[in-house]
C-alpha cells in the first residue's frame, strides 16, 4: 500500500497538477478529434483530385458551373464563392475575438463576438443552400447525355459516346460539342462538333438533362456532382453542427455559466472546431473551385 497514489479527480491529468501539454483535457481531445476529421476530408479531397485528373477532359470547370450571383444577371465566375469564403473568414475572426474576450473575462465582449459568429455561420449555410439550388436546377438550355454510339477522333481512334455530356454551342441548338478525351490534363482540350445527320443520330439515342443529381450532371462527368454534393455537403454538416454548438455555448455565456466557472475555456474549445470548419473550406475552395 505504500506506493499507492491518491488521484485528484478534479485535475485533468493527475500527475501533481502538471500537464505535459500545458493544456486542458477537453482542449487536447478536441484537437485529436480535429485530426481524425481532417484526415476524413484529406481522403475526400485526394479521391476528388484523383478522379478530377483521371477524367480531366470531361471534367467540368467550376468557373463554368457556378456563375450565378444573387440579384445580378449574367456570368460571374468565382464571385459568389469568393463572397462565401470572405464570410467564413470573417466569422473566424469574430470567433477568435470572442476567445480573446474570454481571456479577459469580458462577458459582454464574448456575447457580442460569439453572436456575430453565429450570424456569419447562418449566412454561410444560406449561401450554400442557394448554390446547391442553382447546381441542382442547372441551365435552361441544358445538355445532351449521349447514348450508345461512336465517333472518330482526329487521330483516327474511335471513342464510345455512351455517357458523354455534349453541350450546345448556343441557344439555336444547331451544333453539339463533344469533349475529346485523349487530351487529358489540358484545360484547352479541343472539341468534336456534331451537326446535321450526326446531330440527329446523337439526339435520337441521347437524353436531355438539366442541372445535376447523383447520377446525371449537365456540366460534365457525374462524379463531379457526386463529389460536389458529398464534400460540400459534409462540410456544410460541419458548419451546421458548429452553429448549433456555438448557439448552445452562446446561451451559456448569456446565462453566466462560464463567468461563474471562472474561465471561458469552453468558448476556446468550440472556437477550435469553428476554425477547423474554416480551415476545411480553405482547401475545398482551392481544390473544388480554383484548381
Amino acid at each position, binding site marked *: 500500500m505504500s506506493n499507492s497514489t491518491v488521484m485528484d479527480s478534479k485535475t485533468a491529468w493527475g500527475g501533481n497538477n502538471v500537464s505535459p*501539454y500545458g493544456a486542458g483535457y477537453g482542449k487536447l481531445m478536441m484537437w485529436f478529434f480535429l485530426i481524425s476529421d481532417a*484526415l476524413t476530408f*484529406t481522403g475526400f479531397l485526394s*479521391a476528388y483530385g*484523383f478522379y478530377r485528373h483521371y477524367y480531366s477532359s470531361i471534367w467540368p470547370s467550376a468557373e463554368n458551373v457556378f456563375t450565378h450571383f444573387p440579384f445580378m444577371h449574367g456570368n460571374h465566375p468565382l*464571385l459568389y464563392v469568393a463572397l462565401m469564403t470572405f464570410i467564413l473568414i470573417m466569422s473566424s475572426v469574430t470567433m477568435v475575438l470572442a476567445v*480573446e474576450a474570454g481571456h479577459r473575462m469580458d462577458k459582454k465582449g464574448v456575447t457580442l463576438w460569439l453572436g456575430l459568429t453565429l450570424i456569419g455561420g447562418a449566412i454561410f449555410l444560406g449561401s450554400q443552400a442557394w448554390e446547391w439550388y442553382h447546381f441542382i436546377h442547372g441551365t435552361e438550355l441544358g445538355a445532351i447525355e449521349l447514348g450508345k454510339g461512336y465517333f472518330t477522333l482526329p487521330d483516327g481512334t474511335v471513342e464510345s459516346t455512351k455517357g458523354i455530356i455534349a453541350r450546345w454551342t448556343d441557344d439555336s441548338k444547331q451544333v453539339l460539342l463533344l469533349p475529346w478525351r485523349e487530351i487529358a490534363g489540358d484545360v484547352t482540350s479541343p472539341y468534336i462538333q456534331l451537326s446535321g445527320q450526326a446531330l440527329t443520330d446523337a439526339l435520337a439515342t441521347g437524353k436531355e438533362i438539366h442541372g445535376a443529381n447523383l447520377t446525371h450532371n449537365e456540366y460534365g462527368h457525374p462524379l463531379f456532382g457526386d463529389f460536389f454534393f458529398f464534400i460540400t455537403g459534409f462540410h456544410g454538416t460541419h458548419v451546421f453542427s458548429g452553429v448549433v454548438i456555438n448557439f448552445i455555448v452562446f446561451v451559456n455565456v448569456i446565462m453566466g455559466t462560464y463567468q461563474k466557472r471562472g*474561465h471561458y475555456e469552453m468558448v476556446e474549445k468550440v472556437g477550435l472546431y469553428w476554425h477547423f470548419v474554416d480551415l476545411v473550406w480553405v482547401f475545398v475552395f482551392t481544390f473544388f473551385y480554383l484548381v
Partner: protein
Amino acid sequence: MEHSHDHHTPEPYKYAVHHSEEEGKKVRRVIWNMFWVLLAITTVEVTLGLIWKNIGISWGAVKMTFIILTIAKAYYIVAYYMHLKHEVKAFKNTIIVPFVLFALYLLYHIITEGVYSEMMEKWLY
C-alpha cells in the same frame, strides 16, 4: 522555442490563461493583422483564377501557386487563430506529426493504387 513554458519546465496546469487589458490589445492586433493577410491571399487567388488566361502563365504554374497560397493560409489559421504556434512543443508535435504522416500515406496510396482504375473501368463498361 523562446516561449516561457518550454517543455523542460512543466508549469502547473491551468484551465484557461487569463490576460490583462494591455495584453489583450496586442492579441487583438495580431488577430486583425492575420485577417488582412487571409483576405489578401484570398483576393490574390480569386484574381489569379479570373485573369490567368489573359496574362500568359501556364496552368501548371497557376495550380502550384494556388496550392502554395492555400498551405500558407492554412498555416496562418492553425498557427494564430487556433493558437497552435504558442502551445508547448510536445503538443504541436502530437497534432502535426500524425496528421502529416497519414495525409502523405493517403496520397501515396491514391497515386500507386490509382493504376487499377483503368482496369476497373474496362470491367464495368
